[in-house]
């Protein structure tokens, strides 16, 4: 019956972190709406599961803390304790400590964590009189009827209710339909059962159960003195156990002689399911498998190579003009495109994965700064490539911190300005063609463009004459210039620029852009425009001085052919007129330091959007649009700005991917 716990450690850590995230989220909700029974039930359930899991894994310290926390939650649920700010803070502190302990388990760190202060505070909160946690090693003495709810404290392996007579029970345990890791549940169930009694056997065999060779249910023979109801409660407390049934003696012996495998679908439900027992319904989880991200990366790379090879074959087919091959390749093209799509989708993760921790963060920060903030989130189900999502987590946190710190004005200032005392910060994700836009907006004091301007002039970044030619967006862009800060001297926008350069470069390195809007006294919005996926993009291939370059199509708004006499000069800057619009002209060859054509006759331009304006980029030749696989440049070349990576063309030739915004900055 012995199973190695360590193999479940990773699963435990993942789940524990998910529960902690859910707890944080729910507690923020509870604070807004104290006494909401649904939220309380949710919190209680997560806490309880967390405790059960910890106990199963043998993490006693974690279990103890979770247990004490549960007592407070119980008090909240019964109404004995009020959800005051102190209690909420205490619970948040408790979540943090639990998080730190889970992290320590993940790292395998032996560093002891002192939980005593928090435990004392928790005990004080619920009056301390309630039963305290008893580690499993020491058999509990005074545990009364709460026992049924707190499986962790039941001494092991002595069965409870010692007075009762042992009997052989036959149980059928049914797991949730979408239970992902059945073997783990089996393990947890058996561990629990062995605390309640002696497991005499199972059907299918233990081995088969471990190998997940069963449908949804299995039978266990248990010698125990524990009451049936007790056993049922204990088992249903384990996550993803949907049913526990006791099979009658005759039925059991009958089945035994027949040697028939169990047919769970024919069994009529005897017990109530865990969901209905716990009150509010748990939303149905979608069936899923956890996959290591590196596997997906490998898959992605392989498909990338497949796409390259397909392109190569297509080139062969057209140069030898073989119709049959072309036809077969058209089919292959469709298939690889589908395959690519599917793999791409597997990498997509809803933004809520990172959004979920922000309410807590904003709340803490606002409290700390003495500000009153309503934080709302939109579009949590919008999906982004996993890698991008991981990368923007820190920049987003930074923007939110900025919004609380510098965006939102103090309640007093707000009242003086005739605004509601509570400021509001909104985090919204939305899909916009091939981009996902993630916006952080506040209704705070806004940025004073004039002051930024003055500061820039004072710092020698701009000359007074620039004011005529630069729009306010461009002045605002200065905030994201490395090292530019408006700290101290300009109180109204203090520190607004700190770290924004980091945010911008991160977003740009992902092929996105950072756009900002502000109105003095009314608020500020920062928007990150991010590509949906990373690895494969549509690009426009161009030729300059004999070299091929790829320009991501996402930034291209159009192409045009210009003749050299259409170029005008406005204060030293070459411009062209395209449909009533004046566009600055940039010669790519010059920009890259390559030998230039003498600019005779006509040449194509690519109009690239660089927020807030468009720029015409002159090239020698347009080669056409193509799907390219982005290969990142080796660390050796990473420091060279202006390139978003490179790609291998169908010919085997390497083409650099131009990152026009950084190239021109």
């Amino acid at each position, binding site marked *: 019956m012995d199973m190695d716990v360590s193999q479940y450690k990773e699963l435990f850590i993942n789940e524990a972190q998910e529960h902690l995230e859910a707890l944080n989220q729910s507690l923020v909700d509870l604070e807004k709406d104290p006494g909401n029974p649904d939220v309380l039930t949710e919190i209680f359930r997560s806490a309880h599961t967390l405790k059960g899991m910890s106990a199963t894994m043998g993490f006693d310290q974690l279990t103890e803390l979770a247990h004490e926390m549960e007592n407070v939650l119980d008090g909240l649920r019964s109404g004995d304790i009020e959800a005051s700010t102190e209690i909420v803070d205490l619970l948040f502190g408790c979540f943090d400590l639990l998080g730190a302990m889970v992290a320590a388990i993940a790292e395998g760190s032996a560093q002891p964590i002192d939980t005593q202060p928090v435990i004392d505070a928790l005990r004080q909160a619920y009056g301390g009189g309630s039963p305290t946690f008893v580690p499993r090693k020491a058999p509990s003495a005074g545990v009364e009827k709460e026992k049924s709810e707190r499986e962790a404290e039941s001494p092991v392996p002595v069965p409870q209710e010692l007075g009762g007579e042992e009997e052989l029970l036959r149980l059928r345990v049914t797991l949730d339909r979408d239970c992902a890791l059945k073997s783990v549940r089996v393990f947890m169930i058996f561990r629990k059962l062995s605390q309640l009694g002696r497991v005499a056997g199972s059907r299918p065999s233990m081995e088969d159960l471990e190998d997940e060779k069963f449908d949804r249910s299995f039978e266990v023979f248990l010698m125990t003195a524990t009451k049936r109801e007790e056993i049922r409660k204990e088992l249903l407390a384990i996550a993803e156990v949907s049913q526990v049934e006791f099979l009658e003696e005759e039925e059991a012996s009958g089945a035994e002689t027949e040697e028939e495998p169990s047919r769970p679908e024919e069994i009529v439900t005897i017990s109530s399911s865990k969901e209905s027992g716990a009150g509010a319904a748990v939303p149905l989880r979608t069936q899923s498998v956890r996959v290591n991200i590196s596997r997906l990366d490998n898959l992605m790379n392989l498909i990338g190579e497949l796409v390259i090879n397909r392109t190569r074959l297509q080139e062969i087919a057209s140069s030898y003009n073989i119709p049959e091959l072309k036809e077969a390749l058209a089919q292959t093209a469709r298939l690889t495109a589908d395959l690519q799509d599917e793999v791409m989708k597997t990498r997509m993760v809803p933004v809520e994965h990172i959004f979920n921790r922000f309410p807590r963060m904003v709340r803490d920060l606002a409290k700390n700064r003495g500000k009153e903030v309503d934080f709302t989130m939109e579009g949590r189900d919008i999906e982004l490539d996993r890698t991008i999502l991981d990368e923007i987590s820190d920049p987003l946190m930074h923007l939110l911190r900025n919004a609380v710190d510098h965006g939102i004005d103090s309640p007093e200032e707000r009242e003086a300005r005739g605004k509601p005392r509570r400021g509001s910060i909104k985090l919204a994700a939305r899909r916009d063609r091939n981009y996902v836009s993630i916006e952080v907006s506040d209704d705070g004091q806004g940025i004073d463009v004039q002051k930024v301007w003055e500061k820039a002039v004072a710092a020698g970044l701009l000359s007074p004459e620039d004011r005529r030619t630069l729009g306010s967006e461009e002045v605002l862009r200065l905030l994201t210039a490395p090292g530019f800060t408006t700290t101290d001297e300009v109180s109204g926008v203090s520190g607004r620029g700190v770290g924004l350069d980091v945010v911008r470069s991160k977003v740009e390195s992902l092929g996105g852009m950072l756009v900002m809007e502000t109105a003095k006294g009314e608020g500020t919005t920062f928007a990150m425009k991010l590509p949906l996926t990373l690895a494969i993009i549509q690009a426009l291939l161009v030729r300059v001085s004999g*070299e091929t370059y790829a320009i991501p199509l996402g930034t291209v708004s159009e192409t045009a052919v210009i003749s050299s006499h259409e170029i005008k000069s406005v204060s030293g800057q070459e411009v062209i007129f395209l449909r009533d619009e004046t566009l600055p002209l940039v010669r790519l060859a010059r920009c890259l330091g*390559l030998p230039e054509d003498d600019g005779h006759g006509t040449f194509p331009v690519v109009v690239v959007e660089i927020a807030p304006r468009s720029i015409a980029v002159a090239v020698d030749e347009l080669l056409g649009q193509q799907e390219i696989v982005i290969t990142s440049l*080796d*660390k050796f070349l990473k*420091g060279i700005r*202006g390139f978003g990576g*490179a790609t291998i063309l169908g010919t085997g*030739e390497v083409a*650099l991917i131009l990152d026009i915004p950084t190239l021109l900055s």
Partner: protein
Amino acid sequence: MGYSDRRGTVAGREEMIMADDAKTAEEIQLVVFSLGREEFAVEVTQVREIIRMEEITRMPKSPYFVEGIINLRGQIIAVIDLAKRLNIDSGERGAETRIIVVEAGDVKVGMIVDSVSEVLRIGADAVEPSPTMATDVSAAFLQGVVKHDNRLIILLDLTKVLSLEEMASLGF
């Protein structure tokens, strides 16, 4: 700089190989190549492969010694003109010209050399720490010199040759 001093700077994988070597009387293997008028070597454990010269895509805005980038079986790596890097003259590019792909620290780079001559197995003590002899190459890039059959082979310190700080000091 003695052999044992260097161990701390090499990759873990290499350390294991070195440890094996250490048992067999402190031997090291060098890939010897010529560049200009001199003979150079890098430790074989740092060499990933040696390929023929191929078409190299220009890398604009890169340091002067970066020749460009190539596709090494799906991986894109930088190729440097080693002679330019060491600030010495190189021979003509021709049939003997090779790109030695090396890995040092966490960078993988191809180095163009005039020709690759051999893989040499020598005792680690044959590496003389501080080169006092005259060479055109800046001492900063040298790990030591090897005297072998009346030849003088300059052992390069790849971490220095491929150092990013060096690049940073050049403004990149």
